[in-house]
C-alpha cells in the first residue's frame, strides 16, 4: 500500500485500541453507531449520498437506534 498524504505517517499508522464503533444498516441507510448496551446504539455518522437522508429526524447523529433488525 502506498499512502499519499501530507500527514506524518507515524500519526496515520499509530496503532490504537480497536474501534468502539460498529457499522449497521438501518432502513437502507448505512450508519456508524456506538453500542450503548441494551441493544441500542448511538448514531455517530450517517453514510449516504442522498442528501434527504440527513434531514430525517430519527437518523440525526446522537439519536439512539436499535442495533438488531427491526420489523421493517
Amino acid at each position, binding site marked *: *500500500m502506498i499512502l*499519499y498524504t501530507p500527514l506524518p505517517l507515524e500519526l496515520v*499508522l499509530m496503532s490504537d485500541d480497536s474501534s468502539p464503533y460498529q457499522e449497521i444498516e438501518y432502513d437502507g441507510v448505512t450508519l456508524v453507531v456506538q453500542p450503548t448496551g441494551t441493544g441500542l446504539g448511538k448514531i455517530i455518522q450517517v*453514510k449516504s*449520498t442522498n442528501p434527504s437522508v440527513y434531514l430525517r429526524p430519527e437518523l440525526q447523529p446522537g439519536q439512539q*437506534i436499535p442495533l438488531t433488525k427491526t420489523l421493517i
Partner: protein
Amino acid sequence: MQDKHEPTPPPKPRRQTQGVKKIDTIKEFGQTDVPAVKTNIHCLPIIGQIEGHLILPPQNKTTKYEHIIPQLVAIEQDPEIEGLLIILNTVGGDVEAGLAIAEIIVSMTKPTVSLVLGGGHSIGVPVAVSARYSFIAETATMTIHPIRLSGLVIGVPQTYEYMDKMQDRVIRFVEKHSRISEAKFRELMFQTGELARDIGTVLVGRDAVEVGLIDEVGGISKAIKKLQEFINEEKNKKGDYLH
C-alpha cells in the same frame, strides 16, 4: 461523557416527539413516514483518509473505497439521480483507492461537479479534478508533494523507479483531467522552501485556479448552479435524440 448509561434510566421527557413518533410508526406498522424531499442531486462527501487495501487505525477518519464505489455505481444507474456533487475535505490516503474513485467519477455519464472545502491534499487532487467541473472554496488548500513509501524500503534504484512509476500515474491523471501541464505539476510537486517537513507546494483557493488545477473559486451555490446547468444540457441532448 455526558450520556453515560445509567442502570435504570428514568423515563425522560420526550423532547423530539416527532422523531420518536416516526420510529414508532416504523416499529408498529412497518411504515416510514419520511417527508418526501425529492432531490435529483446526490452528494458524495470524501473526508479524512481515503482507505483502500489496509484498514487504518481507528483514530483516522476514513472514506472507504468499498463504500464509495458501489455508491457511485448506484448513482450512475438510478434514473432519479441526475447529477453528483463531490465534496472534498481529505488529507489524501491510499494511491490505488484514490485513483480508482477518480477513474470511476471520470467515466460516469451523469454530470459531476466537485467542491474542495477545507482541504483536498495529495490523492485528493486527482479526485477533485476527476469531476466535469471543479470548484474550490477561497480558504481551502491543496497540498501537492511527492509520494513516499511506507514500511520497509530497500535502498536500490528499482525502489526509486517503482515510486516514480506510481507518481507518474497520479501526475498523468491530473494532467489529463485538468488544465495544468505536466511540467507545471512536477514543478509544484518538487518545490523546496514551501513546506516545513517536506518538499512540495500548498495551493490556497485562488492559487489552485491560477495554476489550472481547479476550474473556479466558489461555494455551494455556484457548484449547484453549475450542476443544474449540466443537467439541463444533458436533458436537451436527450430531447434532440428523440425528435
